[in-house]
């Protein structure tokens, strides 16, 4: 009996060895693959600014963002929640997995602005057969400001603005690395050009470098942060660097971002040029995005 047992044991040992060998043979025959990193960030926004993420082919994202009054307004204003001075409603569509187009309607206080952008993933972080350390996405944005109207524009230092005067442009190069499944970071040189500005306090051209990061706490919950450092601040500028932190919560097709920031900026122009609250005086806000698959992948 013992012998039979030993024999069976030996045989089963040999069998599984044979299968291990077969598995090795299988793995040797497999071509080395390129593993592209996915989900460096959960959504297309880190806080106020863009992330390297693009929408998948045929996906349409509806994203709406609110920023409330400063928390320092106190209990009577429910710590700012009674007023929402900045809102952006936006749509973004994935033409391919790497190329997207988006539009947005913004208001902040009495200003209104439309933005239209193209986003292209130039390079993808990968490992395996082809290794590349970062994901690089370029975003080009054109913005048009239909308001203020002629009368109010004068008080903004730009009397009788023409259509051209209402235009502004942004170019962002987003460079991000997913260091681990827990931690991702992004650096983004940002260039803004505005055709018309109040030259006593503003520049036509602004350069800023944005830093962003994500730390994943659980599968569905991440901590997020972002900071814009302006490189050429006008000597009389009344504005501040945009800074923000928050929580990124993902459910089915939604991404909820609960945000604390000093900025009302929801497009590159206003983030860089119109952050009007001191960094210590934060506002609560949120971004909510919902993704729909418009055309099936296969």
């Amino acid at each position, binding site marked *: 009996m013992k012998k039979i047992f030993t024999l069976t044991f030996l045989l089963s040992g040999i*069998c*599984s060895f*044979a*299968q*291990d060998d*077969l*598995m090795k*043979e*299988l*793995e040797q*025959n*497999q071509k080395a*693959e390129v*593993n592209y990193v*996915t*989900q460096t960030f959960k959504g297309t926004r880190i806080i106020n600014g863009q992330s390297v993420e693009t*929408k*998948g*082919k*045929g*996906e349409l994202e509806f994203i709406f963002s609110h920023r409330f009054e400063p928390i320092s307004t106190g209990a009577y204003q429910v710590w700012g929640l009674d007023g929402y001075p900045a809102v952006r409603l936006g749509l973004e569509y*994935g033409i391919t*997995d790497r190329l997207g187009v988006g539009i947005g309607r913004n208001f902040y206080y009495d200003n209104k602005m439309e933005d239209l952008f193209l986003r292209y993933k130039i390079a993808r972080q990968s490992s395996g057969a082809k290794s590349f350390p970062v994901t690089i996405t370029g975003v080009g944005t054109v913005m048009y400001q239909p308001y203020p109207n002629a009368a109010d524009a004068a008080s903004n230092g730009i009397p009788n603005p023409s259509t051209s005067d209402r235009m502004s442009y942004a170019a962002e190069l987003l460079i991000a690395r997913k260091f681990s*499944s827990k931690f991702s970071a992004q650096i983004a040189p940002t260039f803004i050009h505005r055709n018309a500005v109040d030259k006593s306090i503003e520049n036509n051209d602004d350069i800023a470098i944005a830093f962003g990061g994500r730390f994943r706490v*659980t*599968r*569905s*919950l991440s901590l997020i942060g972002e900071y814009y450092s302006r490189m050429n601040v006008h000597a009389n500028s009344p504005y501040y660097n945009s800074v923000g932190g928050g929580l990124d*919560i*993902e*459910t*089915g*097709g939604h991404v909820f971002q609960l945000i604390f920031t000093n900025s009302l900026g929801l497009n590159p122009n206003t983030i860089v040029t119109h952050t009007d609250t001191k960094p210590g005086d934060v506002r609560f806000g949120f971004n909510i995005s919902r*993704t729909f*698959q418009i055309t*099936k*992948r*296969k």
Partner: protein
Amino acid sequence: MTFLAYSQKFTADKTYIKFFSNAAIEDISAVNTKSSSIFNEATGDIVFSIPIKEFEFAKSLMKEHFNDKYMETEQFPKATFQGKISGYQPTATGEQKASATGKMTIHGVTEDVEIPGTMINANGVLTMKAKFMVKLQDYKITIPQLLWKNIAEQVEVTVEFNYKSL
């Protein structure tokens, strides 16, 4: 002997794995055609290797969630099966019932399984077909609390592999 065993090995040249989840909110299915397999006809030994990220879905977001939240693909890039086919007669042609017994590894968890299926031997082309259920719980695949319950607790897996002699 070694030479003989070698000549009786088959490798999969066409692979098809589909999983189907039937749940209240939506039915989800995905297809993977990038797997590989070797079958040793002489010994009955068989191995499968399935790259998880190659499952293609109708929606980008489904694929993202599948890899990121359920399968944790970065950590567990492959599912494997290694085992033995029994009930298959290499000399017989046509369709015959067979079963595969062995170890299935999904999501880093290994389980002993027995999968009934059919084998078709026609002119040196071997086709293997099976349909079976996989319980997510068995492989410690959990549904994140914040995610809606739009995936079933067990999914139906359909496998169809074509082999040619190596």
